């Protein structure tokens, strides 16, 4: 049975621990990468928040517009992940995602998205409130 990545916005406080853990788990040249999850404070400071992260859509626009088939669903995790060997950095996926869930890493200008950390999402691991979970 495949695990499910669950977001419960009502539990989110907007503490942004998820962003931090994501950035550090996707390092580029020993520098933190851009977080592929963003948590917005709706009632600052730190009372209510909304995490925005890739929905891993059933029919992902990013995947459909990718000219190199670099975006594929990982059958174990269900995540749409980027095969950087195939990616030609055309940014079509970035343009196509209607939710803003494809990011551009400022360090190398490569596109980046949530890949569920290959099966153990660090955001869920470190989320102090249980707003993010993977089970």
């Amino acid at each position: 049975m495949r695990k499910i990545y669950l977001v419960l916005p009502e539990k989110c406080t907007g503490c942004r621990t998820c962003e931090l853990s994501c950035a550090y788990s996707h390092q580029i040249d020993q520098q933190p990468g851009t977080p592929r999850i963003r948590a917005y404070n709706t009632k600052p400071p730190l009372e209510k928040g909304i995490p925005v992260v890739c929905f891993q859509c059933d029919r992902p626009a990013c995947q459909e517009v990718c000219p190199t088939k670099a975006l594929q669903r990982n059958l174990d995790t269900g995540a749409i992940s980027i095969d950087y060997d195939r990616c030609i950095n055309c940014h079509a996926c970035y343009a196509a995602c209607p939710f803003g869930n494809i990011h551009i890493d400022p360090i190398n200008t490569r596109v980046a998205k949530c890949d569920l950390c290959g099966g153990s999402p660090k955001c869920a691991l470190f989320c102090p409130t249980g707003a993010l979970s993977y089970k």
Partner: protein
Amino acid sequence: MDILINGKKVKTRKGEHVLEVARREGFEIPSLCHHAALPPDGACRLCLVEVEGPEGKNKVTTACTLEVAQGLSVRLDTPEVAANRKVVLEMLLARVSDSPTLLKLADKYGLLEMRLVPQGEKCVLCGLCARVCTELVGAKALTMEGRGTETYFQPPFGEPAKDCVGCGSCAFVCPVTCIEYKKTDRTIEIWGRTFERLACTECGEPLDLTPEHRDLIRRRTDLLTPAEMQLCGGCERRTTMKTMQRVVEGQQTLETARR
């Protein structure tokens, strides 16, 4: 089916080529013209390997074009491979003498002496730019022109690229970064063209997207309505966040939020 690389048994699938298999297994093979998203082309000839044949009749060939087969055994580091790869590198370095990519390879593969006259070119003619543009992006703005030593990869007749969409993929895949790609706040300049950058309709921030590229992307799917591809990532996320907030606060159901 299993093959042997430097004597190590390696699992492969039918139709795979030795280069991709070897790299997956952590072996290093240099190449300039190979790209995982494109079929093998065999243009740069750097990825030489030696195939063991019957009665010691070994053959040097390119790993990128060598399909795996039952009983195949290749070696990556024989004297024959090293000697020929050195000469191919020497030829490439004579062509483009100041490329850090090539200089690094020369260092690594023991090319110490340059005997050929430098040509002062910038492009190694690997062809990735035109192949990516034609076979992947689909803009068909670049091609191989001329022939022999007078070969160029460029837009038709070397004029400003009429069919270019300014996506910049050619510049990205170029192994010797010889394609000039200039981004300003408002424009993208490449192949003699200046493209307008679309701006986020919400905050005005310039997007990494030209109108031409947007139209090309639209043609790949029916998912994108004209309203889409107008916002920057940040504004898109804020919109997403607000929608989610309304769902959480019960102002909107999940069903209507879904597109």
